[in-house]
């Protein structure tokens, strides 16, 4: 029950199937990595889980701790315990990081309670310091004019501030330099807990040297075609997707 469970999910975009009978179960306490070639549907999966309306879900189920979240609003799904670190975080002009995260925290409090500003800023600054984000960033418009790496670090900052049950990180490592990669990995490892599950979407095995996954899945053409332990990422790195196609896809097709 304490898991993020996706069963036989079929999703179309403009009538074209993108996710095809996709199934995946992430119990709390585990880190799952999801790898797969460009355009295979990883971000589509992440956004469908987060409640994006533009995708046609034709069948399947998504359960968060046993409760269906399919068809729920993105804000409800967030409050139910899901966090998506975006592959391409949006720029929100005129909304400061501090006010943005504060609004998200406020949404988690009962109606008549408001945030304790002193505690809030202490937590925010501590977490920014840990992620080596300059405190001056609090007043800057969210993601506006941020470098690629700054955006990704800011996603992780939001994630650590909101303390979700399940974290989906969509290529958070892309655009990070080596130092930033370690900082972000440290941030994730600090959040690692028996009470929390992770789905880490990545193209690079390098990240998985720092965040050791429990399970690695390989996705191809809308579904998971092979799963293994952390070694699988290394094997994939050396053999490439042709190996996946030859070894797992054709055998599935027959």
């Amino acid at each position, binding site marked *: 029950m304490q898991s993020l469970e996706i069963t036989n999910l079929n999703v179309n975009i403009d009538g074209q199937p993108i996710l095809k009978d996709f199934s995946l179960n992430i119990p709390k306490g585990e880190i799952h990595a999801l790898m797969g070639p460009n355009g295979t549907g990883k971000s589509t999966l992440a956004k469908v889980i*987060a409640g*994006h309306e533009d995708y046609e879900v034709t069948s399947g189920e998504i359960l968060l701790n046993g409760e269906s979240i399919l068809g729920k609003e993105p804000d409800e799904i967030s409050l139910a315990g899901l966090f998506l670190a975006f592959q391409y975080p949006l720029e*929100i*002009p005129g909304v400061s990081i501090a006010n*943005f995260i504060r609004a998200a925290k*406020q949404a*988690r409090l009962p109606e008549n309670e408001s945030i304790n500003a002193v505690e809030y800023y202490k937590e925010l600054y501590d977490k920014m310091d840990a992620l080596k984000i300059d405190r001056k960033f609090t007043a800057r418009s969210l993601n506006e004019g941020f470098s690629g790496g700054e955006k990704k670090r800011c996603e992780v900052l939001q994630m650590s501030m909101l303390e979700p049950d399940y974290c989906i990180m969509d290529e958070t490592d892309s655009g990070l330099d080596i130092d930033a990669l370690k900082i972000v990995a440290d941030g994730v490892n600090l959040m690692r807990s028996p009470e929390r599950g992770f789905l880490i979407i990545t193209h690079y095995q390098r990240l998985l040297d720092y965040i050791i996954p429990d399970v690695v899945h390989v996705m191809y053409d809308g579904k998971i075609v092979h799963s293994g332990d952390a070694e699988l990422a290394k094997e994939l790195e050396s053999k490439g997707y042709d190996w996946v196609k030859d070894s797992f896809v054709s055998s599935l097709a027959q």
Partner: protein
Amino acid sequence: MNTTVNTHTTANALEPQWLLDRRNSGNETYSNLPVPSAKDENWRFASVLSEDIDAFKSAPMPEDHAIDYALSNSKLVEDPIAELIFVDDHLVQSKPLPKELIDKGVRFLSLNEAIEDHSHLLEPYFLKDSTRLGSQKYFGLHASNVKAGAVLYVPKGVEINEPIAVYHWSNTDKGLICPHTLIIAEAQSKVSLIDVLASTTEENRCLNISASNIQGHPSANIYRKVIQNFNSKTLSFQLDSAIADRDTQLENIAINLGAAKARYENQIKINGSGAHVTMYSLSVAEETQEFDQRTFQTHNAPNSVSDLLYKNALFDTSRTIFSGLIQVEEGAQQTDAYQTNRNLLLDQRADANALPGLEILANDVKCSHGATTGNIDEDELFYMLSRGIPHRVAMQLIVLGFFEEIIEKLGSDSLAENIRKLLEEKFASKIKS
């Protein structure tokens, strides 16, 4: 120390001849010019004014409860160094300048006081000219009726860092108010003045014809903000003109929230090189409100900058019109002149019109003009929702964020905070979950 003024004065025969002449010619202009029609280029897209303007009349001194209401709600500007509060064009309270500024020659006077005792100060500027953007008829009415307002004179080299505030409240149904603001900033002086226009009730339908005139002498630094927050029944004309001389720094900010129909004309003339003028405006239109904005940036001298940014958010079936002209005269080389209008449509029924224009007679200039109209970005919204922020709050944050680049230019944290609150109040009923 605040003093309450109880006298009731009107324009009268004791006025100097030059003023009587200007009032008469204003009256003639008002009577002779036709009511503008949408065929007039200056009134394109504006809805036709069906109202009988003559039905609006100056109102007598208001009753105490109206005055009390005005006094207890004149709070937008915190800790002004001096203040005037008018209700229906009657001065009801004034906080004079501190003695040390008066000793330095600074004058901050109600219009009546200025006419009586400082007519020489007024004569070169007062009612001589206004915007040339289509409202000459209404300026004529203003000139013949004006009896309330503020005259601010800052002598050479005197810098005032704290804001000066002027409140104009309308209180009477079918009342006419004609607030006037004259700022004379001598060379190297510095001053900041904030006009607030508002109504004491939700119901009184009033006609406002306000005019302001800023005279910026060389190297003066002038900051003028005007906040229009009349009730939704009001008809409002604001006719603002300014002259910038050599190295004058002039910053204009207009916040437009209220009125049924509000026409805002803002005209700046740069007559000296090295001047830097900014014109910012923020409007929130809802229901059937119409904001009609006409601007004119004239560069008569080289090496100067004028930068205009007008942002509008439109709810319901509201309308906005932005029509702006940049005119760069021959010889005004190395001019930088910008004009940007951005409209955020929050309802498909709302209607934003933009008429940007350029007229450039110099050949070495940097000018740009542009207008954009767009909706809330669905991806931005999804991003915010995905953090658990409810739809209503997300929309508010996006709309407030849209205005933030104007709000942060207000230069005062407390005023910025008070304006954000006003905006939030206005959105609260508009943005539903």
